[in-house]
């Protein structure tokens, strides 16, 4: 089994339930996998057992979607406890969450909701990151989210906010290039200026996914091929920041696993690192 080392600087794939059986049966030549932590919040059972078998052969990253890191509600200790047990079980190479909130007043919306980009939210979320890391006893990386609305009273740009969280907490950033592109279109900012504002040393991983063009704005569905514009932005990002472990995500209308492998091969060519993915 791989130790809890770093993820390889190569293009991996987000592993979703419809592909688990195929991955177990064929052991595809991919450098690493990432799963949504909450999908494996179980005390035992076949899904968790399958994940442990995959973990025995591949480096694994746990990516959370439900911690509600930026919420003004108290931290959900039960949720942290479940994550901590999963971490102990699979010894992931990396644990990440989203720079967002999902719940307030006890109600959970199970969505990645944007924060207002101001000093209060910055101080709050930095404090929460520190407390979560204390509770987990390990570092977490955080991801920039896509958004359809922006708070009117923001006092800083999203990239300033994201870069500030990285600087203040010392946490690594999981830079979702698709989310940068989607937000640049939706909120009318320059995606390259955003990338330029990110301290390269803070970036631990890239995410890539597909969006759908809605009537009003781009919708981050993770349900389509990665767009040409996002590939181009990714290539410019890699040139500026450097190659990092890169993940292909596909969460709705999930295609055949070979499609994900194809996207990973494209990402790998752009990364220009080891030729990790067999054709």
């Amino acid at each position, binding site marked *: 089994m791989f130790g809890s080392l770093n993820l390889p600087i190569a293009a991996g794939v987000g592993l979703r339930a419809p592909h688990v059986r195929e991955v177990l049966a064929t052991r595809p030549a991919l450098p690493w996998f990432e799963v949504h932590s*909450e999908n494996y*919040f*179980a*005390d*035992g*059972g*076949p*899904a968790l*057992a399958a994940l442990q078998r995959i973990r025995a052969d591949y480096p694994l990253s746990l990516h959370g*979607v*439900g*911690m*509600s890191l930026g*919420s*003004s509600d108290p931290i*959900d200790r*039960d*949720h942290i406890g*479940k994550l901590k047990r999963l971490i102990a079980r699979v010894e992931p190479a990396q644990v990440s969450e989203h720079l967002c*909130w*999902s*719940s*307030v*007043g*006890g*109600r*959970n*919306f*199970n*969505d990645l*909701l944007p*924060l*207002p980009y*101001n000093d*209060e*939210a910055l101080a*709050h979320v930095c404090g929460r990151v520190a407390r979560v890391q204390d509770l987990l006893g390990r570092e977490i990386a955080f991801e920039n989210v896509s958004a*359809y*609305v922006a*708070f*009117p*009273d923001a006092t800083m740009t999203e990239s300033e906010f994201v870069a500030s969280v990285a600087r203040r907490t010392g946490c690594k950033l999981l830079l979702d290039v698709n989310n940068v592109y989607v937000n640049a279109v939706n909120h009318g900012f320059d995606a390259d200026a955003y990338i330029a504002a990110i301290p390269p040393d803070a970036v631990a991983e890239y995410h890539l996914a597909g969006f759908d063009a*809605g009537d*009003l*704005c781009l*919708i981050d569905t993770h349900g389509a091929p990665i767009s040409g514009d996002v590939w181009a932005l990714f290539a410019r990002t890699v040139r500026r920041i450097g190659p990092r472990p890169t993940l292909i995500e596909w969460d709705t209308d999930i295609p055949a696993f070979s499609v994900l492998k194809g996207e990973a091969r494209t990402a790998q060519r752009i990364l220009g690192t080891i030729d990790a993915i067999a054709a």
Partner: protein
Amino acid sequence: MPSLRELQLRFAAALVAPASTEGAALDDERMAIYRTNGRATYRHALGATFAVVKRLTGAPFFNAAVDTFVAAHPPFSGDLNVYGEHFADFVERYAPAANLPYLADVARLEWAIDEASRAADATRVPDAALAALAIVPPERVPHVRIALDVSCRLVESAYPILRIWRANQDDRSGDERIDLEEGGILLIVRRDTDGMAIEALRRGEYAWLAALAQAATLHAAIDAALAADPAFDLGAVLRTHIGAGTIAAIFDQ
């Protein structure tokens, strides 16, 4: 400037109902994207857990039921696995489903399967359970308690829900005719070495296991079983359920 908490509470109000966005100064047309995404999240999550209920009713009916359920039982956890515990009770009272009297019990069976699939792994040691029983002094035997495997769930219905469930799995056409008059069924759902086991139980056997699950003594469980079925055979059910791993442990205390 409003506080983070105020902003989040206003945003939350706008996620629930479109009219309240004025104070939040959020673009309501775009907030509608979040409302749509939110509905899709719960329809998808519950549609996976309650796949047979969805197949029996069709997606439009099911999705409308989920939307109503979410409004009545707002989610409280970032872990969607635990959301759905009250769905069967909701279905039972959901007026549009009144002409499908078996639907709530099918939902109960699907929730039992879902819970069992996430329960802790157990090492099944039938010999250890037998050995534990063998060392109990005869006069203490009526007072022992029997712990069932943590994955065990008991489901009872006045309708043939196992036949309905099986006929509506992905590999079946689902158009098989099932006579609701054929009567009810008593089921145990538990994890097996090969995955999930769903088995029909006899009346006395079900009453016995149900009593044990409530931490009754062996004596009280036998009384319950005999009340349900005078022909209840303790030796036979002990052998069956120790062998199958339903019985995790026997202890004299």
